[in-house]
């Protein structure tokens, strides 16, 4: 009897364990698959790319829990005039890249500061660049791209960058963001080449920085803004750089900025021929913070992904989403195979359990044939013998089911932690499922033994042995 209980318990354990894994596998595997890269793309409908606001609005269609990461990209062609080479530069968000493209392998580190870039291995090898090297990139706007009226106000919300020579030949860089009425909303000064305790203070001095806000370009030092005391040369360079930025952008001329390489990127893919920089740096170089595409890593089933993609396309103006079929398809195929494997194993385990329980109950019946004979001699009908054994079997099933649900969850937890490296949540439906299935299995297993018990001749009790 104990053996029967054990076998039902073990059967139910494996059942519960596998069902838990079965239910959890898509989630687990989904997380695993996310390491193979993005499975959804958000693209701009138009030529001009999409704004940050559009992207954020699109992302609202995906539940926060399922969005693993969303990396925006803006691609432009840049030249490295010193080497007479040209590459694709990609502006992105490095925090998100680590989530959507965990397979990126970097020698060095991700850029953290302004004017730092990550260089693809192929480029690095071609031009012999290493971690820590400097790299001067020039962006040449395509015809008509930012051409505007040189004297008029700059495009509202534009980001402009410029540089000018400051103290002892060092370059001072500025990046400025314009508000909706083309006034300065904020600016960043990079005066790293200047004497830190004199010109360098222009980077941090609040009253110096704040006087620019709300002003329109171009500016004149001494009229529109005052120099930082003791750092007139650097202050002059800042104003000059701002004006250059305005003129450069409006004239549609090339922009050249010097970057520092912080790491070499190896992926085995086309990313090796790209230069990666932050979106802010990209905006500084090109004067626009629009993005071309966002790569999304979403932990969801193929059907859910389809729904999200449709919602995004429908609900967000100027944006459409599509799935990376290569990833979603193989994910669905692998999951399907895994689930049918689990299903098969469960079925086999249940059949084995049934055989084991049936055999044990058979032994129990023949062990108790005298007692059964006695009960029948005392007036037990076939029905009551059937009920008693079935009841006993069902009770075993109940106990085994509860035992199995608990042990099975532990089993699934162990498997999950060891195989997938993450814990699983308890499925509340697991307990009733395990109990009902094990009771069903127990009842089925009892059918043959019960048939035998019913067939016992009550006259058995009269024979002396």
């Amino acid at each position, binding site marked *: 009897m104990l053996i029967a209980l054990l076998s039902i318990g073990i059967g139910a354990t494996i059942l519960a364990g596998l069902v838990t894994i079965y239910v959890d596998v898509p989630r687990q595997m989904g997380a695993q698959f996310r390491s193979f890269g993005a499975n959804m793309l958000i693209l701009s409908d138009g030529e001009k790319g999409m704004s940050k606001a559009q992207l954020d609005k699109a992302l609202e269609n995906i539940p926060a829990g399922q969005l693993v990461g969303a990396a925006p990209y803006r691609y432009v062609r840049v030249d490295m005039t010193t080497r007479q080479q040209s590459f694709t530069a990609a502006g992105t968000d490095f925090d998100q890249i680590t989530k959507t493209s965990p397979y990126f392998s970097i020698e060095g580190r991700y850029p953290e500061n302004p004017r730092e870039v990550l260089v693809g291995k192929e480029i690095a090898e071609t031009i012999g660049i290493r971690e820590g090297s400097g790299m001067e990139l020039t962006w040449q706007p395509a015809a008509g791209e930012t051409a505007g009226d040189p004297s008029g106000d700059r495009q509202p919300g534009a980001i402009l960058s410029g540089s000018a020579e400051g103290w002892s030949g060092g370059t001072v860089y500025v990046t400025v963001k314009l508000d909706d009425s083309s006034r300065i909303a904020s600016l960043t000064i990079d005066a790293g080449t200047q004497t830190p305790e004199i010109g360098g203070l222009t980077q941090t001095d609040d009253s110096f920085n704040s006087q620019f806000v709300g002003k329109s370009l171009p500016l004149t030092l001494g009229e529109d803004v005052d120099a930082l005391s003791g750092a007139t040369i650097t202050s002059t360079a800042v104003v000059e750089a701002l004006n250059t930025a305005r003129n450069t952008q409006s004239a549609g001329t090339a922009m050249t900025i010097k970057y520092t390489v912080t790491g070499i990127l190896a992926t085995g893919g086309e990313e090796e021929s790209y230069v990666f920089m932050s979106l802010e740096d990209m905006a500084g170089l090109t004067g626009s913070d629009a993005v071309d595409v966002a790569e999304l890593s979403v932990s969801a089933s193929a059907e859910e992904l389809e729904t999200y993609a449709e919602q995004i396309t429908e609900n967000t103006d100027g944006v459409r989403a599509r799935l990376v079929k290569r990833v979603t398809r193989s994910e669905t195929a692998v999951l399907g195979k895994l689930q049918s494997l689990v299903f098969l194993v469960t079925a086999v385990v249940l059949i084995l359990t049934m055989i084991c329980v049936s055999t044990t109950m058979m032994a129990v019946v023949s062990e108790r044939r*005298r*007692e059964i004979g*006695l*009960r*029948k*001699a*005392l*007036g*037990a*009908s*076939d029905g*009551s013998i059937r009920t008693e054994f079935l009841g006993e079997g069902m009770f075993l099933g109940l106990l085994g089911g509860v035992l199995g649900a608990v042990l099975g969850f532990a089993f699934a937890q162990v498997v999950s932690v060891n195989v997938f490296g993450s814990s699983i949540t308890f499925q509340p439906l697991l307990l009733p499922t395990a109990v009902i299935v094990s009771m069903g299995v127990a009842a089925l297993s009892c059918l043959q033994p019960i048939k035998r018990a019913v067939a016992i*001749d*009550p*006259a058995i*009790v*009269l*024979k*002396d*042995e």
Partner: protein
Amino acid sequence: MSLLELKNVSKIYGDLKALDSVNVHVDKGEWVAIMGPSGSGKSTMMNIIGCMDRPTYGEVLLDGVDIAKESSKKLTDIRRDKIGLIFQQFHMVNYLTAVENVMVSQYYHSMPDEQEALEALGRVGLRERAHHLPSQLSGGEQQRVCVARALINHPELILADEPTGNLDEANENIVLDLFAQLHAEGTTLIVVTHDPEVADAAQRTIVLEHGKVAREVINEHFDEQQKEWLARLKTENKRVMPV
């Protein structure tokens, strides 16, 4: 008045005639012993009377119903309602206590009633052993529990198969005392035995040989025995409680 009547009953197993045109008649309230050597057909007869088997030919009238023609299900009902069985091997459910064993019989008959079961145990002098397991009881005590179990549903007929076959003399006497008391109360008793002493306690003995009734012996001293027994019961007044 006749309770049981076997008319030309035969039971044939292949070539073997276990019972061969047997005619037996038992009145209500009678105490009858069935004797005979091994293979004489005692067991077969017992099975048929106990509603556990059907004859090949003949009629078996129990309380006016021909049980030879009933279905197994009906036989089970008749057995449960009209017959109390006592076995040589006692046959107790070994994981149930004495009182629970008595209650098993109640369970299949109607409703378990512990008070009634305890009273029945009291009648066989085992009230204080009610919560012992069979393994804690002696053979004689186990057989007395079985007598209590046979009595519990007030059967019309008590059918005992070698009830003292596994008992020593002292316990044999206790069981026979119980039978005498049941007889005094009007219960019909059929006792299958090969022990002449047990047979002698009955009113009438039917002797079977080769599947036929060889002879019937009337116990002429039966009334004296009963008187003696009642007198002894009064003086001893111990194990067997007065009716």
